[in-house]
């Protein structure tokens, strides 16, 4: 496979289903276009420096192109500059890099996606009452965007809804479960909880089941467990991005860049709200992943 195009993808995470879905999309594109793709990411979204080490090692490998999902875009600038100096094209994915080095960005608008979750939540609880958020990370871009998107939307559009608690469980299902149970026990009149990523959402749903609560749960992302919960109604619904699409578009854009194609500034891969009623719609089913 010496003559194959070598593309290194440095993501924000690795073990989570979301990133595995991105990887699946990238692999799909790799197979389609005959490229060799590697995929790596740090353990948690706070490990900015570990991601730098991964990027540095990837550069040493002298790949033909790099796909990069920056945990902190500023921190990455010197290394990206180095890559760009070496003539290696860079495609950003998942969230943007504050720099003009990346040729394009394949991403989801997380603020808007979380605002949609807020709208759905408001609709389901009847426009008033207390809600809470269980998110994955207090400092990462996606964590901040989704919490802000949800909370601000509630503040602006639904004055009768109060966000009583925002807590962070690191995306760990068990920890998110414990957090959810505490929130429910502390606020018996709570109407709903938004789980801001896959692990958080599943944790919230588990906490709800364990306490036999009737609150409205809105999740984020998909995965087999979450789909099952939406199907069974434990979770009212969830926002899904299109991670497979993100991975696919990233690799496709990288290859396009190598072939000298013109790339758009942003490739919006979109987000969707799904619930038991629309899960099987072909458009939705296409972006859901296991």
């Amino acid at each position, binding site marked *: 496979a010496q003559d194959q195009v070598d593309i290194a993808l440095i993501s924000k995470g690795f073990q989570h*289903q979301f990133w595995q879905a991105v990887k699946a999309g990238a692999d799909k594109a790799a197979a389609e276009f005959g490229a060799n793709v590697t995929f790596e990411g740090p353990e948690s979204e706070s490990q900015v420096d570990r991601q730098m080490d991964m990027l540095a090692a990837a550069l040493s490998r002298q790949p033909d192109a790099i796909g990069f999902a920056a945990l902190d875009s500023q921190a990455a600038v010197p290394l990206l500059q180095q890559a760009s100096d070496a003539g290696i094209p860079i495609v950003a994915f998942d969230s943007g890099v504050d720099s003009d080095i990346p040729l394009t960005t394949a991403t989801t608008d997380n603020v808007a996606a979380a605002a949609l979750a807020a709208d759905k939540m408001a609709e389901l609880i009847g426009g008033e009452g207390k809600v809470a958020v269980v998110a994955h990370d207090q400092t990462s871009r996606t964590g901040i965007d989704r919490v802000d998107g949800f909370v601000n939307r509630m503040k602006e559009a639904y004055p009768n809804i109060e966000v009583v608690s925002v807590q962070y469980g690191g995306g760990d*299902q*068990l920890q998110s479960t414990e957090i959810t149970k505490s929130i429910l026990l*502390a606020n018996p009149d709570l109407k709903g909880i938004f789980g801001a990523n896959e692990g958080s959402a*599943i944790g919230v749903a588990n906490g709800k089941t364990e306490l036999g609560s009737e609150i409205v749960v809105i999740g984020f992302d998909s995965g087999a467990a979450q789909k099952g919960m939406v199907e069974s109604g434990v979770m009212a619904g969830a926002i899904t991005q299109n991670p497979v699409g993100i991975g696919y578009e990233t690799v496709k854009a990288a290859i396009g860049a190598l072939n000298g194609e013109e790339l758009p500034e942003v490739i919006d891969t979109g987000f969707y709200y799904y619930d038991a009623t629309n899960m099987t719609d072909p458009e939705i089913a296409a972006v859901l992943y296991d």
Partner: protein
Amino acid sequence: MTDTTAPGQKTGIRISGAFHRLLAFSGLIALVVVFSLASPNFMQTQNILAILQATSVNGVLAIAATLVIITGGIDLSVGTLMTFCAVIAGVILTYWGLPLPLGVIGAILAGTVVGFTSGTIIAKLKVPPFIATLGMMLIMKGLSLVISGTRPIYFNDTPGFTQISLGSMVGSVIPGLPIPNGVLILFAVALLAAFILGKTALGRYTFALGSNEEAVRLSGVNVDRWKIAVYALAGSICGVAGLLIASRLNSAQPALGQGYELDAIAAVVIGGTSLSGGRGTVLGTLIGALIISVLANGLRILSVAQEWQTVVTGCIIILAVYADILRRRKL
């Protein structure tokens, strides 16, 4: 030769022993009292059950760590080994579709084998426990991902599986008291570990090894064999923890587990077991694990901002141990 153990002293020691054990709860009780006063939601049955449920996994892991720490060793692999065992159960039950009991046995056996391997590396190759179990932690973490194909394995085809942790045998007998099975399992493991430590040769050698390994060797005891046995036992307990967490999440989550070792070791040390070995109790470890859960639960119930929760937890851990030291010094 004079007898230093006058009868009066003896009763003194006995009384102080009981008193001691009672007072050991003091840190925990203080926390419970404070939280009960601060929030009416804290002392509700459901919340108490939530706290116990939250303790079950860390409690079981901490008991495994206690055994190893009493020998003067350390086990950093408890968290990822737990995950590995959960994945093994997933493979057996979901991928291979075998019946539930085989999954249970498989998970515990996997833990035992891995613990046995760590113990062998430590005892035979003389690799320090910190390194051997650090390596094992990474190996288990990687293998969990490899075996599961980096995706959760769900137990949807094994309906009884979630009952291991979430069902309530007590609740089905006494309707008002839905103590989850996971909590019962924690107590069962604790009783078993306490029995082994207190009443069996394995327990005796566990303490002896941590006290003075060289002396045990000089006494003609096969030190290696017993050391390996302790690690294997700890591994099998991690297997139980794996079943607990998998049944609670109805899935084996291959990415989870790292970082859990620190909570487990913290519970052990807060419970008064010395990291230099030779002394420690399962009861202390249980209290330590409860202190950690009560703290987390209480601060959340009070809706303390999360960054401050962390600060307060840090302070209280230090204070709880300091209070325990003061108490012991006085007695």
